[in-house]
C-alpha cells in the first residue's frame, strides 16, 4: 500500500524552481532513503510531507501530495493533525530545555493528554521503543541536556514516537553523531520499520544501503532514479546515479 504519493510536484522558493515535477510513491512499513548532493532538493521534498515548508516565506507549491490518499495541501487539512500522524526527527538533536520525561510527554500534552498514568506509560513505552529506557530510567527528571548527543537524538525519536505517528521523517538524523551512536540509530530504524513508515534523508551512502528498502536519487530538483536499494547500489540504470553512488561527483 502506498502511504505517501506525490503527483507532478513543483516547488518554488520565490523565483527559484527547487523541485521540478516529482512523482513518487512510498509504501507503508518500509524505509525509503533520499540521497543526492547538497542542494538537490531532497530535504525540501521530505518537508513537504508534514508541511514544514509552510514556515518558510515565499514557498509556492504546484501538484499534489497525498498522505494516506488525502491531499494534505487542500484547505480542509488541519496541519496540527497531519503533524500528529507524520512525525519528524531533525539533523541536529534538538530536545527542549526540559526534563527527559517532559520532552517525551510534550507531544502528548500538545494534543491535550494530561492524565498522569497515561503519560507515565507512554513515556516509558516510547523510551523503550527508542532503546533509551535502560540508560535514562533513573534520570527522567534530569535535564535532557545531561544526555550525550546520541542519547539526545534517541530522545528526539522517542518524543516523535510518543504521539503514535504513522510516518516518521528523518532529516540526516545521524550526521551530527559519532559512529557508535550512528550504529544505534540505524539499528533503531531497522526495528521501527515493523510498525512505522520511515523516510530518511542521508548523505551517507553506506547508511542508505544498510537501512533502506528503497532509495531515491535526487539531482538539481529532479528525481533521477528510484528503485529497490539493492538494485540502486549494484545495478543503477542511470549514469548519474552510478557516478554519485561510486563517489565520482557530489
Amino acid at each position, binding site marked *: 500500500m502506498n502511504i505517501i504519493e506525490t503527483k507532478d510536484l513543483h516547488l518554488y522558493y520565490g523565483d527559484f524552481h527547487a523541485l521540478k515535477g516529482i512523482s513518487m510513491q512510498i509504501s507503508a512499513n518500509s524505509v525509503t532513503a533520499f540521497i543526492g548532493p547538497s542542494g538537490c532538493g531532497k530535504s525540501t521534498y521530505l518537508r513537504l510531507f508534514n508541511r514544514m515548508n509552510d514556515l518558510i516565506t515565499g514557498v509556492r507549491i504546484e501538484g499534489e501530495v497525498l498522505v494516506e490518499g488525502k491531499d494534505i495541501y487542500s484547505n480542509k487539512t488541519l496541519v496540527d493533525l497531519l503533524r500528529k500522524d507524520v512525525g519528524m526527527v*531533525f539533523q541536529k538533536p534538538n530536545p527542549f*530545555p*526540559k526534563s527527559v520525561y517532559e520532552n517525551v510527554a*510534550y507531544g502528548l500534552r*500538545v494534543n491535550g493528554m494530561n492524565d498522569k498514568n497515561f503519560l507515565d506509560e507512554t513515556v516509558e513505552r516510547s523510551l523503550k521503543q527508542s532503546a533509551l529506557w535502560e540508560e535514562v530510567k533513573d534520570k527522567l527528571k534530569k535535564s535532557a541536556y545531561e544526555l550525550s548527543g546520541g542519547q539526545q537524538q534517541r530522545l*528526539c525519536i522517542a518524543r516523535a514516537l510518543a504521539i503514535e505517528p504513522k510516518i516518521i521523517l528523518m532529516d540526516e538524523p545521524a550526521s551530527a553523531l559519532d559512529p557508535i551512536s550512528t550504529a544505534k540509530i540505524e539499528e533503531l530504524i531497522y526495528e521501527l520499520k515493523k510498525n512505522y513508515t520511515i523516510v530518511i534523508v542521508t548523505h551517507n551512502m553506506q547508511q542508505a544501503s544498510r537501512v533502506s528498502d528503497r532509495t531515491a536519487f535526487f539531482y538539481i530538483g529532479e528525481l533521477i532514479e528510484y528503485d529497490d536499494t539493492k538494485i540502486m547500489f549494484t545495478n543503477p540504470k542511470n549514469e548519474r546515479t552510478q557516478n554519485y553512488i561510486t563517489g565520482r561527483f557530489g
Partner: protein
Amino acid sequence: MNTENLKKTGRKKRVSQTIAFMTFRMMSLLIVLLLIVILAFIVVRGAGAISWDFITKMPADGMTAGGIMPAIIGTLYLVAGSMLFAFPIGVMSGIFINEYLKDGLIKRFITMMTNNLAGIPSIVFGLFGMALFVNKLKFGDSIIAGSLTLGLLALPVVIRTTEEALKAVENSFRDASFALGASKWYTTRKVVLPIAFPNIITGLILSVGRVSGETAPILFTVAAYFLPKLPNSIFDQVMALPYHLYVIATSGTKVEESRSMAYGTALVLIVIVLIVNLSANALRRYFHKKVKMN
C-alpha cells in the same frame, strides 16, 4: 621565504598584538576606574549624611535637616508603577513583533518606531505626559501620571530586549514543537518564552535603572518640590529622589547648607538602583536554572 624573514614578520605580529591588547586593556581599566571614582566620590561626600533618621524622617528646616523618607517612598512607588505598566505591554508587543509578525514593511515600520521612541529626549516625554495624563485625562500631578510617563520612557527598552531575547532562541526548538503538532501560541508559551525569560528579565533590570534616575519626565507630572507627607492614593503627588536631589542642589533657599544632604540623597538613589539590579540578577539566574539548559 627564508627563515630570517619569517622570524622578522613573526616578531612584528607579536609586537602589534601586544600593543593592541594593551590598548584594549587600558580602555577597560579606565572605564572601571571611572566608575569607582564616581562611586567613591558619592560615598565619601554622602556617607556623613546617612543615618537612620535620614532615611526614615521627613525633611525639615527648609530641607537642610531631617530626612528624605517621602522621596524614597515616592521613587519606589514610581518605579513599581511604571514597571507595572511598561513590562506587560512591552513584553507582549515584543512577542508579537518577533513571533507573529512576518518580515516586511509593517515589521520594519514598527521596529523603526520603537527605535525612535527610545531616542526621544526624556524632557519631551515629560511634556507629553503633562499634556495627556495630567491635563487631558485630568489625573493632575499624581503618581499615576508620573508612572505612566516613566512607563512610556521604559517601553522601548523592554520591547527591544524582549525582541532580542526571543531572537536568541534557536529556531530548532520552534521546529521541534511545530513538528509535534503544536500551535504557534502553544510553542511560544511552553518552549520559546521559558527559554527567553531570563534575558527578558534583563530588560526589566535596565529599565528600572533608567526609570529610577529620571528627573525630566516626573518634573511636570508628579514630583513635588516639598511635601512632607506620604501619598494616600495613586492620585496624590509625591517627592522623588532625583528631583529632590536637583532641588536641594540647585534651587533650594539654602543650597550650601544642604550640600551634604544632596550627596546623601545621591547615595541612597544609587544604593536603591544597586539593590534592584542585584535582586533582578538573582531572579534571572533562578529562571535560567529552571529552564534546565545544562
